[in-house]
């Protein structure tokens, strides 16, 4: 019986072997290729890349395969790899105004320069199981697509800003200056907006979704409009000191959401619209929208609004947004706690004995 805690090493090896067998599933079914995951489970790949803060579709596909499709486990795998990589350079800020847009919608204007482009969206699909997909081998006909990059596509909020109705975002004083990196420096509070956005960009989609939702239901209400959502490829540029100019190192797909929220104005500022901002790797519209809601909610203090809901509380949001941290700490409860439990047992027994003795007297 005391053997229960012995033999940990052999048990761990056996558990890993069993896991490998489970992961493979029925060997008579063809094994998944990483290319299949990358191409056909693209939204899962995107989410893993976003929450791992690493743009590498092939490694994200590998992580998903290794984690049997468990997204948070896959995020963890990719993060643990990311942490070993050197930081070679910081890119220049990506310019989403120059995005090769594949989807762009605004809920604030019926029509606008560049137009509304639905792109590849689930929005208007009827959620009926498509049994034709169950039968493999169907050819997918080519879709008629809007050609990206045709004509100017100014950002909707800039149209409002031109009229003074929208707050101006102040660019950082030095765009080539050091970028805060919460994976390299411990977070302290108040964190400020750049770090908040960084934390949310890699934060858990479910957590941000729930928090964003809570603001819509009155826990820190500030009614937003989806000013603009755009999705597509942007090029990433890095300035190489030896060259003296920026070079394009590749393209990444991003989803950006800018919300438009009212601001009543105060002693120094007249009423105008303010922004909430969301940006994520890949096609992550749900998360980008939730992030924009929470970003705006977190600006409550800056804009002189009452902090009433959890989504407006910077320390609360930032301390709990990370799913790898949360998953680890919640699940650490299954580690042995014999010692603490034993100490508690002694305490509760002593308290009960005292109470029973007092009751008997």
């Amino acid at each position: 019986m005391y053997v229960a805690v012995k033999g940990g090493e052999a048990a761990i090896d056996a558990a890993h072997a069993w896991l490998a067998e489970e992961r493979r599933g029925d060997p008579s079914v063809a094994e998944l290729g990483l290319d299949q995951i990358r191409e056909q489970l693209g939204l899962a790949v995107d989410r893993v890349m976003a929450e791992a803060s690493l743009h590498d579709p092939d490694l994200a596909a590998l992580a998903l395969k290794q984690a049997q499709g468990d997204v948070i486990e896959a995020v963890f795998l990719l993060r643990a790899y990311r942490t070993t990589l050197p930081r070679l350079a910081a890119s220049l800020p990506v310019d989403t105004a120059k995005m090769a847009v594949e989807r762009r919608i605004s809920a604030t204007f019926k029509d606008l320069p560049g137009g509304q482009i639905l792109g590849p969206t689930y929005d208007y699909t009827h959620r009926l199981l498509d049994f034709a997909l169950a039968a493999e081998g169907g050819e997918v006909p080519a879709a008629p697509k809007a050609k990206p990059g045709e004509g100017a596509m100014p950002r909707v909020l800039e149209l409002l800003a031109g009229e003074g109705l929208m707050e101006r975002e102040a660019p950082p004083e030095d765009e080539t200056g050091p970028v805060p990196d919460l994976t390299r420096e411990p977070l302290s509070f108040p964190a400020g907006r750049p770090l908040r956005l960084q934390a949310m960009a890699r934060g858990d989609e479910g957590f941000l979704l729930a928090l964003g939702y809570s603001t819509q239901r009155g826990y820190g209400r500030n009614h937003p409009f989806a000013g603009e959502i755009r999705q597509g490829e942007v090029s990433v540029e890095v300035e190489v000191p030896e060259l003296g100019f920026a070079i394009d190192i590749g393209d990444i797909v991003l989803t950006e959401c800018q919300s438009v929220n009212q601001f009543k104005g105060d002693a120094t500022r007249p009423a105008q619209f303010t922004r909430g901002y969301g940006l994520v790797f890949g096609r992550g519209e749900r998360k980008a929208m939730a992030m924009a809601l929470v970003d705006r909610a977190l600006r409550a203090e800056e804009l002189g609004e009452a902090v009433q809901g959890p989504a407006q509380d910077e320390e609360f949001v930032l301390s709990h947004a990370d799913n790898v941290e949360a998953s680890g700490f919640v699940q650490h409860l299954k580690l042995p706690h014999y010692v603490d439990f034993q100490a508690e047992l002694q305490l509760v027994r002593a308290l009960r004995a005292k109470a029973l003795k007092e009751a008997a007297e």
Partner: protein
Amino acid sequence: MSADSGYNFAYLDEQTKRMIRRALLKAVAVPGYQVPFASREMPLPYGWGTGGIQVTAAVLGPEDTLKVIDQGADDTTNAVSIRRFFARTAGVATTTRTIEASVIQTRHRIPETPLTEDQILVYQVPIPEPLRWLEPREAETRALHALGDYGVMQVELYEDIAIHGKIKRAYDYPVEVAGRYLTSPSPIPKFDNPKLSDCPALQLFGAGREKRIYAIPPYTAVRSLDFEDHPFAVDHPGHPCAICGDTDSFLDEIVIDDAGGRIFVCSDTDHCRERQEGQAHENAA
């Protein structure tokens, strides 16, 4: 390069180790103060010893002998996993014997065998902030530490006595280090608290998820909080160990049948084994 090529010695790159060592030096200079550090994402889960692992990785050298315990035992699964991690990434010698180890990483216990000046004890810490359950905000607790304002904890302990007749904390019992900082000893049973004080070994505490490091330097006074009329005292179940007969060590309760039968055995497996071997030796002589 390490035994398992592709990663640096003890997994972390040298820049990261240097950053951690700086935090450790500050922690030793200001005993009990929680130093923020740029905790890395480790290949083991948060909450499973990532802080302790990073501290161990930063202090470990090729000549070291490492012991890893969880709940006092070397063979609990997470202790096995962490020991293997360092055997794999650092190729260091490992041991289960307290007296042979130069670095001991622990979760929830302090070894029964007294430690020496040549040893470093590394604690895994889940929540480094002793005031966390009284005040959830980090910005606020940092201010309380800066001011040395620990009234909220005193009141908490006083209320326990007023309501229950004793302080209702069986583990993670708060301590004052070197007469200044209120500090969490990590979730060790309060039975172990007296071992913290005036310890010849360097005691380092790592909280990975919470990104904090703190330290109790050798021979530092550590006081478990108490009141003059309710002095700190340790609990003991009053049974000897069923295997080695020790009456002074911390005991695990083991349920042995379906009828509620149970025995008590040493939580520190190395200590228990040493005593058994000593007894076998005496019997043979």
